[in-house]
């Protein structure tokens, strides 16, 4: 299972020289195995996915954790959507009030975007996902709602060669006492449990988080503690704050390394990072 990180930035893309090392594109991760391809979130990093052939039925499965703009803004620029030979499956969170098509249609319509959903020329299939379990080719996917404003899913992608947990927008510490150490009461813990790799929200420093409780994101320290509680084998910190320069990010990371002690390896996610499980 090959995993490629195409976007690690939270909220809004950045293009400054100061964020060039880790990258300024918003959330997007490509997962490939046995000729099948998944795309986790469609942030601006999606523009770096090469849409060439070679995949089974020219099929791409796009799994959206939620529909905040930084997670869907790359969709309209994903070339296979405009290719009649492509088969695109979009899996996104269900809602009691509006269909996934209706909600995505807000983006795929003027004035936000010049092309309507109905004008996409690919073979398009939409799937509404809840606390669900489903298969895509060689992948077994589990999804469940996690703590973040609006219907938001986390994903657990299991392949015979490894398990990836993906929770890029997540605030499990929301509450009076922060993270609850009983994992039954820990949002998304079934998804992350003993995963080979966890990609987790780490937008804020602990100091910043104090002023941003309820915004739907995690601190670097909470992400680490969450990984420890769920027993993951490796953690990648992602959804970096768009205002944080590479230098500031590395400074915060060094501080984390100096002040905490965990048994599992962890690192900052960056654009272009390729991992094989």
């Amino acid at each position, binding site marked *: 299972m090959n995993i490629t990180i195409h976007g690690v930035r939270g909220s809004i893309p950045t293009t400054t020289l100061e964020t060039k090392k880790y990258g300024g594109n918003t959330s997007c991760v490509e997962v490939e195995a046995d000729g099948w391809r998944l795309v986790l979130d469609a942030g601006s990093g999606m523009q770096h996915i090469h849409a060439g052939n070679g995949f089974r039925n020219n099929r791409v499965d796009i799994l959206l954790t939620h529909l905040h703009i930084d997670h869907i803004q790359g969709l309209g620029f994903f070339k296979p959507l405009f290719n009649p030979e492509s088969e695109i499956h979009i899996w996104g969170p*269900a*809602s*009691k009030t509006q269909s996934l098509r209706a909600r995505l249609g807000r983006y795929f319509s003027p004035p936000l975007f010049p092309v309507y959903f109905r004008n996409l020329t690919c073979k398009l299939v939409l799937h509404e996902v809840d606390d669900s379990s489903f298969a895509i080719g060689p992948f077994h996917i589990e999804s469940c*709602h996690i*703590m973040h404003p609006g219907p938001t899913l986390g994903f657990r992608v299991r392949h015979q060669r490894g398990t990836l947990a993906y929770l890029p927008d997540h605030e499990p510490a*929301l509450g009076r006492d922060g993270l609850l150490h009983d994992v039954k009461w*820990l*949002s998304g*813990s079934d998804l992350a449990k003993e995963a080979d790799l966890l990609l987790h929200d780490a937008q804020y420093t602990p100091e910043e988080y104090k002023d941003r409780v309820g915004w739907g994101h995690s601190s670097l320290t909470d992400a680490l503690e969450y990984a420890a509680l769920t027993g993951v084998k490796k953690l990648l910190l992602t959804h970096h704050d768009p205002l944080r320069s590479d230098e500031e990010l590395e400074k915060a990371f060094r501080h984390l390394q100096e002040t905490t002690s965990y048994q599992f390896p962890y690192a900052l996610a960056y654009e272009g990072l390729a991992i094989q499980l």
Partner: protein
Amino acid sequence: MAYAIELILNRQIADCLAIPVFITDTEGNLLFYNEPAEEILGKRYEDTGEMAVDEWSTVFKNKDENGEVLPPAELPLVKTLTNQQPYHKTFWIESLQGRAERISVTSYPIIGRSGKFLGAVAIFWRPTEE
């Protein structure tokens, strides 16, 4: 297995409130009660953890204004668990220590985004004179 996000969020709210809150699963098993509820139950969540329905439902004797025992089917929480609707009732509870107290109970079902019934919340109030 982790609880649904709707149960977790209800617990987190309860944890921040000064009013007694009990949270159950769909069977009535007590999953969580907050600090103010500990006073009513006479037990600490830290000590008991979750409690089976048979265990915690016997802590109180529920009585009406005339001192008659209320059948379980008339209790708000039981009705909520049965019908998945909110209910409210004022009645008397008598603890195992024999202490009687007039109490109002408001209960509501936890029905998640998917429409799935996940459990119930009961809020206990000490009623002001009406």
